[in-house]
């Protein structure tokens, strides 16, 4: 997937300002037409010119645009990621918990528990790996579907919108976080 953070290379700076100015001009044109202005295209050109004007005085302006974009998108995605996770916690999980589990909970004292059957499960490495890779790989949907089918946990499919949303926003790199391989007891 294309990186949202843009490098400060000249080609990217030029492209960034071209795309952004075009979008602003088109927005101004649409607004002008909606307002019934006879020379809406003049407004569009004016907006584009004003947008680029500071760059005539200092070339740093164009680089600052890239920096601002990178900071803004990082912030937006952080907020959106948090919002998505909260939605998941408050809306999806309360619903999913009613769907039950495919794991037999043969509690002592219950009718099933009377059979005194062991609750130990055979470790299914393939299923574990599939679950781990589900949200990482490009083919996460098919992996998730396969995992849901093989384990009988069809409720996993209700997570598809959330995983799609998180995939769109990419991973947040936490530089201060310990490596994922680090085993901790806290």
């Amino acid at each position, binding site marked *: 997937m294309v990186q949202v953070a843009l490098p*400060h*290379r*000249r080609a990217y700076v030029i*492209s960034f300002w071209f*795309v952004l100015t075009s979008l602003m001009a088109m927005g101004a044109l649409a607004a002008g037409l909606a307002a019934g202005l006879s020379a809406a295209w003049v407004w569009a050109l004016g907006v584009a010119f004003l947008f680029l004007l500071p760059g005539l005085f200092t070339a740093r302006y164009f680089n600052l645009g890239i920096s601002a974009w990178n900071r803004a998108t990082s912030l937006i995605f952080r907020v959106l990621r948090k*919002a998505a996770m909260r*939605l998941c916690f408050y809306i999806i999980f309360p619903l999913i918990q009613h769907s039950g589990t495919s794991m037999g909970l043969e509690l002592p004292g219950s009718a099933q528990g009377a059979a005194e059957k062991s609750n130990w499960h055979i470790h299914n490495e393939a299923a574990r790996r599939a679950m781990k890779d589900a949200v990482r790989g490009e083919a996460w949907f098919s992996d998730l579907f396969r995992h849901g089918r093989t384990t009988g946990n069809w409720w996993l*499919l209700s997570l598809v*919108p959330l995983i799609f*949303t998180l995939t769109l926003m990419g991973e947040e790199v936490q530089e201060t976080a310990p490596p994922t391989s680090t085993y901790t007891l806290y």
Partner: protein
Amino acid sequence: MSRLPFTVAAGFLSAVALLPIITVALMVRGIALAVSSLARAIEPSYVPWRDLMTYDPVLGWKPRPNLDANYYADNDDVFQLVTDTEGWPGRCSVEQADVIAIGDSFTFGYGIDSERAFFSLDSSIRVKPVGAPGYSMVHGIRIMEQLGGRLRGKRVLWMVYLENDLQDNLVPNMRQYRAPFLRSSADRTSWEIASEHISPEPWTASQTISRHAMLAVFCVPGPIADRAYSACEWLLHRARAICVEQDAELAVVSVPHRMLLSDKGCSLLATLSPAPEDFDPSRPDQRLGAVCNRLKIPFVAGREVFNYADYKDREGIHWNGRGHRRMAALIARVVRHPLGTHNARMR
């Protein structure tokens, strides 16, 4: 209880609830995709850095001759490089040049298009850069020896980068490249250039040395600094002898690391040095200047010429366009008003 209705309801509800987030994320991604696609279309294709270099039995590595290619500079941008028939940057030959600039990546014009580098800016003075990224002062001596009679009657400007040149004079490699270096002579009274290890095979025997830490060491008194400056003196002495023999005018200009040009950088370097209380950012220039004075070689202290703003912001090592213009102006002054044998203040 059937699980399906809950699964469907949860999926549907979450899709609806997440729709605004998905819309915003798609818009951001869409803009990024448009920018990246357009950038890839207009950015010139570039070749890997290693493809620009070739093995040289004397220098270890050298730019390939007759290049007109683009390369990607680390953490920076794509730049155009033009080399002559010998592999040195620029189109002018050594014979055509008024000034021969010898040095490392600064001399080479790393991180700027060849046409915008200092050696291309003043059409009234023909400057020939002879250098490549990673070269030390030992390479400078080897180049002067190779050029020999072709230096006759020319001005030779030796650009010494203070971050790594002083230490690289004494180490046998630059990353995977094998480099000629200085070692103590057998009787321990002088120095000699070692180059018998040079071959096309990548060097794997040395650990990477922190350049900042070594620069900090060279800014305080001590045996390591004394050894490095002693090696510099031997090299400067050798360079002077070559230039005198060829009737060429030698001048030395130090190129400071950006950290030496800011209070914050100096404070950081001081903490890396073994004696922070003795830290003096001008010490490398003072020591080199003193050697040049003794040898009667004109010396320009880079800290008197360059500003912090002359260096690239993000890449943080090399000059930006402003730095190259300042270097071009310095060369013009040196050519039009030859420096005396005293150290020159150029600001």
